[in-house]
């Protein structure tokens, strides 16, 4: 009988340290058949676990086109992430998923894409960027504005440079004032300000905005000034979850179960929801 909560056992095939407290881990299914049949949509999430410490919810931050492994990224902040921090190549961790509603990447076809991220919010954007680059003909101009408090807090920096090499892709990196190093070549300022300075038309674009609440709050008016419709602006909510499958009762934002109906929402959808996230 199928046990809803029993995870897939995953072999750790890569560990990458991004900052002093952020790592990403690459996983491969131990079960070959499960590895073959497994699919997901970018934007979906999983429940990852270290046995003895517990489970935690993270976006699957690899592209859904990558068939040989999946990745997730986390900051070391609690019991489970402290345990995941100790994980090495060859170790086994648990994975349940994929869960939730991913990005409607088919509906995004034919549009420009604007990705706006702050800090540890890069992973759920990164999967969509790779997906778009791998299906390059389907999308127009791609703009990425990614900021963090300091240079040392930026994650996936080598990939930022790689994305910028693609034609018709603009990548702007920024750090908060005071967060720069002497050799910093990116912008200095907050994501909303830097994005406005770049004057990217958003009227025919789909935007994905993920970051701390203050960044999102200040970015939305800029997007509106750039001509974006709120039905074309997406985010991914981060409500705390335990089950991931609509039973444990904690992730609802108003009447909406983030684990089932989210985590991806348009701002038009969010505006119809009460402030419960």
């Amino acid at each position, binding site marked *: 009988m199928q046990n809803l909560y029993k995870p897939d056992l995953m072999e750790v095939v890569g560990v990458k340290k991004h900052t002093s407290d952020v790592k990403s881990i690459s996983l491969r299914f131990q079960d070959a058949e499960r590895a073959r049949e497994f699919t997901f949509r970018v934007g979906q999430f999983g429940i990852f676990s270290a046995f003895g410490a517990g489970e935690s919810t993270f976006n699957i931050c690899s592209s859904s086109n990558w068939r040989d492994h999946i990745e997730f990224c986390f900051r070391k902040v609690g019991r489970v992430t402290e345990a995941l921090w100790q994980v090495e190549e060859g170790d086994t961790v648990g994975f349940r998923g994929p869960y939730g509603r991913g990005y409607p990447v088919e509906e995004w076809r034919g549009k420009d894409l604007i990705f706006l991220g702050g800090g540890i919010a890069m992973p759920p954007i990164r999967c969509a960027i790779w997906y778009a680059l791998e299906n390059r003909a389907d999308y127009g101009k791609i703009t990425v504005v990614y900021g963090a408090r300091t240079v040392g807090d930026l994650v996936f920096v080598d990939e930022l440079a790689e994305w910028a090499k693609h034609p018709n892709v603009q990548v702007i990196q920024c750090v908060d004032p005071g967060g720069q190093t002497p050799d910093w070549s990116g912008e200095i300022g907050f994501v909303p300000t830097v994005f406005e300075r770049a004057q990217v038309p958003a009227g025919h674009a789909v935007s994905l905005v993920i970051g701390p609440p203050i960044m999102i709050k200040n970015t939305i008016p800029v997007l509106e000034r750039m001509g974006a419709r709120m039905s074309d602006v997406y985010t991914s909510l981060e409500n705390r979850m335990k089950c991931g499958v609509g039973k444990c009762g904690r992730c*609802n934002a108003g009447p909406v179960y983030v684990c089932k109906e989210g985590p991806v929402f348009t701002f038009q959808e969010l505006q119809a929801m009460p402030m419960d996230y």
Partner: protein
Amino acid sequence: MNTLTRDGLRKLVGEWMAAGKICVGPVRVKPGTVLFARLTSPEELLLDGWVRPANSIKELLLPRNETLYGYRVEKNRIELLDPPETIPEQIAICAHPCDAAALPILDKVFNWDFRDEAYNRRREATTVITLVCAEHDEECFCTSVGLAPDATGGSDAMLYDLGDGQFAVSSLTEKGRAILGEAEAHGGHASAPPVRFDPKQIARFAVDRFADPFWQAHSLACVGCGACAYTCPVCHCFDIVDEGNGREGVRARNWDACQFSLFTLHASGHNPRHAQGDRQRQRIYHKFHVYPEKFGETLCTGCGNCARNCPVGLGVLPLITEIPHAEPV
């Protein structure tokens, strides 16, 4: 068998217990405290008059602590161990209609889209014999949420107290007939509490006045103990935690409650429901708006356990009666 005497019922319970079935019913576990508890002898079963146990029979389907699976770690290999496949048959005796009504409500949560086999296995193994309420107390409000003291939802058999030491018996399902035989008798007295509010009005208030100071003002006394949720027949929120160490242990499902401050706390430190008033609102909002929107029913059976067990006089009915325009309808 259309009627049963009290002694006849006890005798049957004794037979079920002898056959290895787990029998649960109202038991005075200590002076002043009655709980639905596993019987160690049929004599423990309280059959004299109306008693409202402080807990509910949801524990039979959703135990406070349940092993989802075990794990064993050997170097970097991990073995997952299934919990026992078979759940012993369990019989709830003298459940209240408001306890039994919780089962079809919980069925929906545990089976929409993803099926929760741990829950379904226990549900399948559970038979519910409900005693019609011949009395009620001032915390009871089943009639306000569309139920009644003789409601049959979720029950496999009904007992009607005929008042002369006898029960009329009605078997409603295969499970009921399997233990009580064919029976179709009714009678006795059912005592309905007055209708106290209209759930649709409460839903409207919770939606329209989501950010209203009402919620903070009326939950200042709440100590966040979670007794309301733990004794509620339909509150089902749970946590999943590892109990063990890095070598072996179990991943377990434990009860949780929306009244706890950590319930929705994000890793970032942000908490969407940081004040107790937000959490009290969530409890009402979930029961009267979220669940009905999803499943078409109220997530409350009007048992009144939340109010009876609250150390500071809150609970669904006390909070709701403070809502403007929620006077008796």
